[in-house]
């Protein structure tokens, strides 16, 4: 009887272990397959012209995506200027000032905003910026991505500020610092490496967003001057080229995917390095 039970247990244990093992391998396999496929096609299609030339008119081969690379940079800059300050200050409020009940509802709202489909955010930016201005623009694209950055910016700020030991706040206040002085001269500097890297990861997350840019930044086959014209971005270029009939454009889309991935990776790694350095110096 006992033998029977222990045998059954062993069988179930082995079955569960192999099941979770298989799932892990599947998940990692899919990830590496996508990465590898993208690297293979993207790297093969990449050349110097991709970085320096404008897109060629349809039917001609060659050309590049210089305008989309710069365009993505511009849109992400606007997004950062909107999403980071708003999210950061709201996060400061949440961590340092707000009462329990209000903090709960604010946090809940922010989490809801985080769950809103990106295309809906795009529609909001369309209504807020594109409609009143009468045309698509880099600004509108930046607003859309900026709104998308807010929830993570709020929660990252809150989390890292809460991790700062209370003894530092008390130390500053015991010297006659006001609450605001305490927060901005002691608490925020103590959390700065975490905050900086959190914001960078946040930026990397929206860098690949396509849907909200489709009807805000639209796209452009030429250089876009200033901030108020339609502008090309890497994700939208990938979308347009991938559904185009020409094989040449597919190659360009692969290259764009590769560049976008590299950009996100660089931002990610930089952020991790900042975190590692920050925690090393605080341990010292």
């Amino acid at each position, binding site marked *: 009887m006992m033998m029977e039970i222990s045998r059954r247990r062993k069988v179930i244990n082995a079955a569960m272990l192999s099941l979770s093992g298989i799932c892990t391998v599947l998940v990692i396999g899919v990830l590496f397959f996508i990465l590898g496929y993208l690297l293979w096609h993207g790297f093969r299609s990449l050349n110097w012209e991709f970085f320096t030339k404008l897109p060629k008119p349809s039917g001609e081969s060659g050309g590049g995506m210089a305008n989309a690379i710069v365009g993505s940079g511009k849109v992400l800059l606007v997004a950062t200027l909107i999403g980071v300050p708003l999210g950061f200050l709201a996060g400061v409020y949440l961590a340092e000032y707000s*009462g329990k009940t209000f903090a709960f509802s604010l946090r809940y709202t922010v989490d809801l905003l985080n769950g809103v489909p990106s295309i809906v955010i795009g529609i909001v930016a369309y209504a807020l910026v594109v409609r009143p201005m009468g045309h698509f623009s880099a600004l509108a694209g930046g607003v859309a991505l900026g709104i998308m950055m807010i929830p993570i910016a709020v929660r990252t700020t809150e989390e890292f500020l809460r991790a700062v*030991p209370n*003894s*530092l*706040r*008390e*130390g*500053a*206040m*015991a*010297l*006659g*610092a*006001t609450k605001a*002085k305490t927060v901005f*001269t*002691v608490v925020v*500097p*103590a959390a700065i490496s975490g905050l900086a890297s959190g914001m960078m990861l946040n930026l990397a997350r929206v860098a690949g967003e396509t849907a909200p840019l489709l009807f805000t930044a639209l796209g452009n086959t030429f250089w876009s001057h200033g901030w108020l014209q339609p502008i090309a971005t890497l994700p939208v270029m990938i979308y347009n080229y991938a559904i185009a009939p020409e094989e040449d454009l597919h190659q360009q889309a692969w290259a764009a995917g590769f560049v976008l991935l590299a950009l996100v990776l660089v931002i990610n790694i930089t952020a991790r390095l900042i975190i590692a350095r920050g925690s090393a*110096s*605080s341990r*010292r």
Partner: protein
Amino acid sequence: MATPHQQMLSEPSIGTSQIPPVAQAAAEPPKTAAPAYKLNSKNLNFFYGSFQALHQISIDITSNKVTAFIGPSGCGKSTFLRTMNRMNEALRNTRVEGDLRLDGANLLEMDVTDVRRRVGMVFQKSNPFPKTIFDNVAYGLRVNGIHKKRVVEEAVERSLDRAALLTEVKDKLHKPASALSGGQQQRLCIARALAVEPEVLLLDEPCSALDPIATLKIEELLFKLKNSTTIVIVTHNMQQAARLADYTGFFLMGKLIEFGDTRKIFQNPGVKATEDYVTGRFG
């Protein structure tokens, strides 16, 4: 009759050569002039939510003397200390009732940053800011609007010197404070508190995390400081209270059970509970 607590006092302890035994100071003939009181509390009550942590605390703290608070954990001594610079206000859902005066003025209605500049505090666990040694000490000056480079530099140097830390750190003022040892960090925190020249210095078990040598250094430092500063110290170490304090208060269950001359509290307490505590017969 040699009671155990007398033995404790006469027992050679670290620092007796540097620090005159309290017994001597207390043996001086009583002064004719009434002592000047720096802080007075009268019928002070304190609540964490509905829990009353302090009951009717009435005490007069003498200027430029060391006053020690002793008592078991949770007896309210730290809470009372934190009431004196209104540190508890930062906690949610707390309430204070009664009268608390600094130089005769109502401390509970003064500007809170003003109170904290005049009544400095050193915490149980050293809490240097993640900044350089220099910026740590300069912090209090800067938040109080003093930015002139020379003035700040002088004040930093003077404060580090008063905290007996200058010789150890003068070549690394611009290194991070976290590079210092535990005892040095605590003295840095004292220097930081001294930089704004507080009239009162509150210390909440400042030596509880330090080894005996670092503890000795801090005790020497406090002994020198009391010429110019009123010192209130919370301690679990009764030898420390006996060595350091002119006056001692014994707290129990949120009440000030007995307060008076340190020598009297340790050698001839008026209340049974005090005697039990100082002789170690108490949990």
